[in-house]
């Protein structure tokens, strides 16, 4: 590690500001002039981050605290408590939680089944490949698939009526309902869970089972005192990731029905399109509320991911 790069690293180390580094002479002759290149290397990223992430988001943040005349106000934030918006948040939170919890449980069971259940290896391969595809199969096409399957004239709906005489919609099922949307979201939530949790399950060593069995633990005790505690941080982390994933989704629900679901992203969609709230500041506050919730979920994910990496190396 006594090569040029590490010397350069040390030289650049204490100096935090990029542009300042550029003007300093390099300790090694042939590195002279490369410094300007360093600035050019980081510049596109920095410019992009400022112009297309930081500035627009800060602008929204400011507007969330601005009255129509530009003065500071907390009215926009308080406006989030109006029944229409509060109920949208509540519906969104419930739908995200339901699809995250169900997705996590089913995904975990499926990952356990293919990795530790003694199924042939090729099944595991198929499930992992399919998960990669299905976790990216969201939005408009996913909504179309579920409409063609379980919509009012969907294939399964029609078949159930013709073959078994069961009218799904008469017996309480509706694709354009809370559980209908949850069922649809699960199509990308479960695969995402499988993809994220599989490495953790692979990381559980066979020796742990043997050690526990030698000490006289039953299978239940193994999972209760070894398996789940080791997987727990991973589960919790993935759960929050799935939550954020569902909370920000808009296209799937919008393509199922433009009006049936009173969720926050659809309300925000309508607000951006045509200012349905009739209040620019309130719109910004709505966006801020969304970011706060997804940020919280992601922070939980990042924190527990760091903690869980201890065991699964």
């Amino acid at each position, binding site marked *: 590690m006594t*090569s*040029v*790069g590490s010397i*350069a*690293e040390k030289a650049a*180390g204490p100096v*935090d500001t990029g542009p300042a580094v550029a003007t300093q002479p390099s300790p090694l002759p042939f*590195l002279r002039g*490369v410094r300007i*290149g*360093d600035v*050019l*290397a*980081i510049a*596109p*990223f920095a410019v*992009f981050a400022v112009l297309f*992430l930081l500035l*627009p*988001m800060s*602008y*929204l943040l400011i507007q969330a605290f601005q009255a129509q005349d530009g003065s500071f106000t907390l009215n926009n934030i308080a406006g989030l408590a109006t029944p229409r918006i509060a109920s949208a948040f509540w519906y969104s939170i419930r739908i995200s939680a339901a699809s995250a919890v169900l997705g996590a449980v089913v995904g975990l069971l499926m990952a*356990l*089944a*293919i990795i*530790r*259940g*003694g199924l042939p290896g090729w099944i595991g391969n198929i*499930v992992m*490949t*399919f998960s990669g*595809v299905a976790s*990216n199969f969201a*939005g*408009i*096409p996913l909504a*179309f*698939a*579920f409409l*063609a*399957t*379980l919509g009012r*004239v*969907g294939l*399964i709906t029609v078949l159930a009526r013709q073959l078994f005489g069961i009218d799904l919609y008469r017996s309480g099922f509706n694709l354009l309902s809370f559980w209908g949307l949850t069922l649809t979201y*699960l*199509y990308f939530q479960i695969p995402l869970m499988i993809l994220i949790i599989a490495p953790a399950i692979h990381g559980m060593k066979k020796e742990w089972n043997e050690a526990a069995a030698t000490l006289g633990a039953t299978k239940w005790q193994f999972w209760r005192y070894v398996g789940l505690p080791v997987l727990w941080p991973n589960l919790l982390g993935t759960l929050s990731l799935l939550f*954020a994933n569902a909370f*920000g989704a*808009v*296209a799937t629900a*919008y393509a199922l029905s433009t009006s049936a679901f009173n969720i926050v*992203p659809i309300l*925000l*969609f309508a607000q*951006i399109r045509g200012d349905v709230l009739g209040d620019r500041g309130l719109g*910004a506050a709505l966006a801020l509320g*969304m*970011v706060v919730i997804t940020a919280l979920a992601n922070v939980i994910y*990042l924190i527990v991911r760091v903690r869980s990496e201890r065991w699964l190396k």
Partner: protein
Amino acid sequence: MKQNRTLAWIVFGIGAAYFVLPLLATVLFSLSIRKSGYTLDAYANVFSDPRFQSTFGFSLWIGLCTIVVGLSIVVPAAYYVRLRAPHLRPVIEFVTLLPLIIPAIVLVFGYVRFYNSSSWLPLTNSNFGTATLLTLAYVALGLPYMYRAVDTGLRTIDVQTLTEAATIMGANQFQVITQVIFPNIIVAVLSGAFLTLAIVIGEFTIASLLGVQVFGVYMENIGANRAFEPAALSIISFVLTWGAMGMIAFLGRFAPKTAPRT
């Protein structure tokens, strides 16, 4: 153990049913546009629709632009951080994770407010400006995946030695990145590119709110007006996603398997 395996089969069976049934039903639905027998008419209708051809072509074009712009932003930055400024890594990683924290709809909301026709940089005034804004929004969407892919690629090569060797032979930094580093991480780069393409190609929310006629917006439009064509579009999208993921898996075979050296 036997009991275990039976349980595993049951779980797998239920899961498989949930995932296969909608696909199967959608395929059959897309084939039953005529009262009698199955036909491919819905697919023929879609493929022969000029709006399908133009929006799909445009989406591909936007996707390619997204990849090129994304790479020219991410590759130099990731290289610089790895080689010269490891202390900046947490900052860069945080920025690349921002698009996961900020929902796409909030991102585009920010753009619409910040770059509207009366702003300092009225990008939404012209078609070219809106298309540029859309591309940059997609760059932001793909940023977490693109950065991770490139960074993983850089980890498998000896960035330091390659840079020294190239520099001694007289290459400037631009040449080092484009002619030495980039070809060495091309597999990782292409994986990131295909993932980005899979995300971008059917995207609806951002494009719709910016008012750009892309494939995702076209699909939504068809969904509101037709019965069987949406099912066909759904299957086409699924095949496309599968193709992109298949390419990533295929490329993975060519990824260097050597242990990280730095």
